[in-house]
């Protein structure tokens, strides 16, 4: 082992062998788990606690949300294909799949806007009751994460026209992908806990 590591080597070689930015993303997502965990815990505490309606089982529309869930999960597939395309230096399909991911994400957001609108029409706003407050906060923050993801994807998309997307840049896309898959996985949890479990009629007390 030599005693002299030049600056460049020490930037590239890390002690763990993992790239700084990748580690950053993993740790950030770990912290996000606790963020969403606390929001979900609040929802579970409050879902049946409201003193006025509507209650979850009266308003949640499982078929519609199942569709939007399917759209969001499809976007994860597109994200995988985007990364694969970048890694084989296929800029054109990379661009296509990045755009497709963003498009599917935006479609999911469209569903969410529709859902929120429907709920408001049927008398559930964030202020109506504690279920509404915790529901809109949880799904709203998830939607905000998807929105950030879509903006990020579109930034990457436009960037690729100016600077291309060489295979060395694949880490940029990989990080994007980690974020995107995380947001999707969180949605699967939300869908299960909030929509499937949450919409069960509470036992009469």
């Amino acid at each position, binding site marked *: 082992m030599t*005693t002299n590591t030049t600056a460049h080597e020490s*930037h590239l070689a890390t*002690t763990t062998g993992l790239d700084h930015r990748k580690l950053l993303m993993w740790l950030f997502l770990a912290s996000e788990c606790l963020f969403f965990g*606390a929001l979900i815990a*609040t929802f579970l505490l409050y879902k049946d*606690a409201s*003193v006025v309606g509507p209650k979850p089982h009266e308003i949640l529309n499982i078929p519609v949300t199942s569709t939007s869930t399917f759209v969001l999960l499809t976007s994860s597939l597109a994200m995988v294909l985007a990364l694969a395309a970048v890694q084989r230096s296929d800029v054109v399909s990379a661009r296509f799949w990045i755009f497709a991911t963003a498009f599917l994400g935006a479609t999911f957001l469209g569903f969410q806007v529709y859902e929120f609108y429907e709920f408001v029409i049927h008398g559930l706003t964030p202020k109506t009751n504690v279920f509404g*407050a915790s529901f809109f906060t949880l799904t709203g923050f998830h939607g905000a994460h998807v929105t950030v993801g879509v903006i990020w994807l579109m930034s990457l998309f436009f960037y690729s026209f100016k600077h291309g997307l060489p295979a060395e840049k694949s880490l940029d896309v990989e990080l994007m992908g980690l974020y995107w898959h995380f947001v999707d996985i969180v949605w699967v949890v939300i869908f299960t806990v909030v929509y499937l479990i949450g919409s069960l009629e509470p036992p009469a007390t």
Partner: protein
Amino acid sequence: MATAVGAFGGADHAASKSGVWSWITTVDHKRIGILYGVTAVTFFLIGGFEALLIRLQLAEAESTLIAAGLFNQLFTMHALTMIFLAIMPLGAAFFNFIVPLQIGARDVAFPRLNALSYWLFLFGALLLNSSFIFGGAPDVGWFAYANLTALEYSPSSAVDFFALGMLVLGVSSLAAALNFIITILNMRAPGMTLMRMPVFTWMTLVVSFLLVFALPILTVGLVQLLFWREFGMPFFSAEAGADPLLWQHIFWLFGHPEVYILILPAMGIVSEILPTYSRKPLFGYSTVVFAGVAIGFMGFAVWAHHMFTVGLGSIALAAFSASTMLIAVPTGIKIFNWIATLWGGSIQFTTAMLFALGFVALFVIGGLSGVMHASPPVDTQQQDTYFVVAHPHYVLFGGSIMGLFGGIYYWFPKMTGRLLSEGWGKLHFWLMFIGMNVTFGPMHLVGIDGMPRRINTYDESMGWELLNQIETVGAFIIALSVVVFLVNFFKSVKSGEPAGDDPWDGRTLEWSIASPPPEYNFARIPVVHSNEPLWDQKHPELKHDAPPVIAGGADEGAEESIHMPNPSYWPIVVAFGTALAAGLVIVNPWLASIGAVIGVLGIYGWVFEPAGPEHH
């Protein structure tokens, strides 16, 4: 890698950097450490000033010096300032300055993110304190219990300042914590395995993980609090079916780990100081490390001991009582290891050593009163009395603050190239040690006698006046000690004795390079063979198989090939936008978009910052 995304300038630019602009745009971890330190000491003075006002009001029964409303603002802001604007950032000052040096790194993993953490901290702190001018500072206690924070009980914007200021500070701490975890995991010098890291670096790692897992929980609580107040979402409105205890659970799920965030850096510092001045290796290095990690883990399991009196039910009471008492085990292990380190050592009573010894003594007292109220029936008696004021002050002042001052005396020579005066330093220590006991010792007594915490005055017939007067005198002795420190500090910065590279005959890598260190820290990256690499090199007779290969000194020719990241003003732009957005929410949530736009433009500027001439 982040440095590769940014631009590089040669090391030769380094010398020419001075002036305000160079500090605003700095990404050098050592300068950021100094910024953190100076800012934290400033807030320590502000928090101390608030404490003196509190003590003046309480020195006399039925005093009318300070009105009740202002009194509430003072004790709330005193706690918030000391915890979030003094102790935490002072810890961060050492993380920044010392950790890269201890692990043999040239920088942190993300230099610009590091600058962002500092600026967010500064602007968040200013936001919190600006509330004094804009209609009143937070006055609901540092843990801001619902329903006291409801619009009907707190109609002013004080609580919004609390929530938004804390959110900004939270982002700052999260960014810093992520940065330090990655720096420590990824940038250690060759040969520095995890179990060869200095204890201070280890504690930085544990604290950073605590922040990463505790802060998002607080964020959720603060968001709920804001949505409740700003948009009328009934998160804590009992009449709507909400459970106001939700706030307490969320707050203390963050808040208890937070107290370990406050103490572990000081424990790390003490674990560096004791071996150095005992001329012995730390006794049981690995147990000290594991105890620190264990304290970190257990910190998440005991939060409800802050809620013994809210009606948790007997099973929960028993569980949280037991888990709380269990924490005394790793804490005790550490104390035994420190004492064993001293045992049989040839001890030098330098100022730094005195502070470390003071830390151990006072922390034991604070820990013992902690174990006392870990018992729910005892706690029921002590809850919300001055006894509970005494306990956190023995651990936070006697522990964290004493430990951090020890760190200042220990590392000041490395930071400035000069020594603090030992004479003034010892005066500082003794005044502070005596003052601290005179102030907080009697609080145990007056607390047992039933004096409630957070009252702004009391009736003469209660018989609490004498003890309160003694406490106030103690507070002024502490204030005097701080003045002594400041005199020492300013005198020594200007004309202190030159320190040399290794004034204490140190054991870890930071002492192997120049004081103050050059911008690139290590001309050659050292190779490490034990947890006391410098000591081994100085004493080859002690080690059999460790070739001494520390190369800290300047090396002809090597410096030209070192590239350090270029200065950047994007961090301050992003921080300004974020804090502006947070501040404007109080005026009108829509106005906040102005700040948000600045912040987002800042992020784009940051990401696309043109790579420097040497970028490849």
